[in-house]
């Protein structure tokens, strides 16, 4: 046991020669290693124990069998994953594949709607005078720092059956008379877009603010109409902001559970709801873990795709 520690320290010493302090004192290898361990060590250690290990546990548990309520037992099995793919004990049950698909669609749909709403807002703010600009940005940030739960349950008030909006929708024939927009998919989408809009507006605004309008002027000079001017002269420049915003909206939105839980009702269950249900209500930890693993996989995939895309975008720019 002790031998392993001294071996590890010897390896660190050898690596210490390649460790440079970027600026600052000239330190010997041993001092450098101690400094770095002292500074990055505590936080790194903490994250290792309380972030990485739990995630690995989730991965491990997803391959175990369900024990009694809240425990797990050792027979290793792929059962949870098969159930996720739809092959449950009683034949093909598309419940969970549908839930997964629905979550992805919700995330993508929210991102798309946010883009549509954020574009005019970003351009509007960029066209304001400096003092008004700061005021407008502050107005966008305030909802961001207001508790998500408050902004979510508020839609219960806004879209209640006897509320103005629901009655208007019923009058237009969009929903049955007497029913409300809440609970329902419309409420979920409205709330998601409203809650995530600042996350799209801010990065998009950062890109729009830096726009070089001479491209647009050149395009107009060459006879392009409004849409083509936007598409060829402006859109390529704001791509980084768009990508950042989509990332900040799509990834959290797929894992969202509070909003569908409070506003969605039974038919709009998402990944988040499924995970919560398995862990708290059903006590089927392996299954819940499997859902979490798959969901995490989707997130990591999205993150990877984004970072590769954005690197290409950056190089093109």
């Amino acid at each position, binding site marked *: 046991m002790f031998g392993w520690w001294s071996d590890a320290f010897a390896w660190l010493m050898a690596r210490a020669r*390649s460790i*440079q302090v*970027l*600026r*600052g*004192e000239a330190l010997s290898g041993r001092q450098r290693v101690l*400094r770095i361990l*002292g*500074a*990055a060590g505590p*936080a*790194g250690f*903490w*994250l290792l124990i309380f*972030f990485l290990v*739990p*995630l690995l*546990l989730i991965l491990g*548990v997803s391959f175990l069998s369900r024990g009694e309520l809240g425990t797990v037992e050792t027979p290793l099995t792929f059962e949870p994953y098969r159930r996720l793919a739809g092959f449950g004990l009683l034949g093909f049950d598309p419940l969970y594949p549908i839930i997964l698909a629905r979550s992805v669609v919700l995330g993508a749909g929210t991102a798309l709607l946010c883009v549509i*709403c954020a574009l005019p*807002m970003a*351009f509007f*703010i960029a*066209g304001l005078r400096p003092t008004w600009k700061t005021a407008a*940005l502050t*107005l966008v*940030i*305030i*909802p961001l*720092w*207001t*508790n*998500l*739960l*408050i902004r979510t*349950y*508020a*839609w*219960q*008030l*806004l879209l*209640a059956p*006897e*509320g103005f909006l629901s009655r208007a929708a019923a009058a237009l024939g969009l929903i049955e008379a007497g029913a409300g927009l809440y609970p329902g998919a419309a409420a979920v989408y409205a709330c998601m877009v*409203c809650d995530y809009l600042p996350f799209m507006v801010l990065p998009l605004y950062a890109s729009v603010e830096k726009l070089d309008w001479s491209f647009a002027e050149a395009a107009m000079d060459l006879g392009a109409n409004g849409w083509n001017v936007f598409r060829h002269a402006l859109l390529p420049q704001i791509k980084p902001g768009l990508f950042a915003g989509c*990332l900040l909206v799509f990834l*959290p939105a797929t*894992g969202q*559970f*509070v909003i569908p*839980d*409070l506003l969605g009702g039974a038919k709009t269950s998402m990944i*988040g709801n499924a*995970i919560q249900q398995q*862990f708290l209500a059903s006590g089927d*930890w392996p299954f819940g*873990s499997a859902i979490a693993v798959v969901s*995490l996989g989707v*997130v990591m995939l999205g*993150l990877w795709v984004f970072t590769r895309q954005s690197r290409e975008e950056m190089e093109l720019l």
Partner: protein
Amino acid sequence: MKRNTTLLRTIALALFLFLYAPIVAVVVFSFNAARFGTGWKGFTLEWYASLPGNNVALAAAWNTFLLALCSTAVATVLGTLLGYALRRYEFPGRRLVGRLLHVPVFVPDIIMAVSLLLFFGLVRQWCGLFELGLGTMIVAHVTFQIPFVAIVVRSRLAGLDPWLEEAAHDLGANAWQTFLKVTLPLMLPGVMAGAMLAFTLSLDDFVVSFFTSGPGSQTLPILIYGSARRGITPDINALSTLIIGLSALATVGVTLLQRRREG
């Protein structure tokens, strides 16, 4: 620079109204005398008056604040040191760690929450530690706060002249004196920004708190969630309005502070 057209102005204003619709609704309904339902039944302040006597709400508020304070303190220290190490020291794996730091930022909070629930549960079976309660909530909050603080501190350090620490050494300051007299004062705005971010994240957090809380460690968001599931009582609207007011004040205050420092 293009001038805003009237069309753009109208659309943008409508979108701003959409953005604020929930906030306005909560504020308006906090003055609604109706005990339930959403019909308007007159203006009243009774819901606000009932708050000081609402022990559950007060306990939740106290928990929320205490949790945010403790977790921010721990996370700021750990995150600042990590951010400093990532900027100042070159070591094998530095870039990897830097990129890995973004992972906790993007992991959905529900996944982090259940993983910690699992972790605490298993450790509890093994050696009895980590009973769910304020302690586990603090641990959980610190875990998601550290990456944010580290990222903020690291990017703020980028604007710091690296020669300043060398100059301090040259003038006779040892490592500790340099850190206290030169590095820390110059890093302080970044550390403060990181701390504020961590504090706000903790205050607003619901999912992680929900999964790692125990009996008696309810926070305001958990309280509001419970109420929203059962059916909103009007005093919750009053409570929420107060929270909205504080958030708005804090945001405006921070913006003004930033402008004054930059100006």
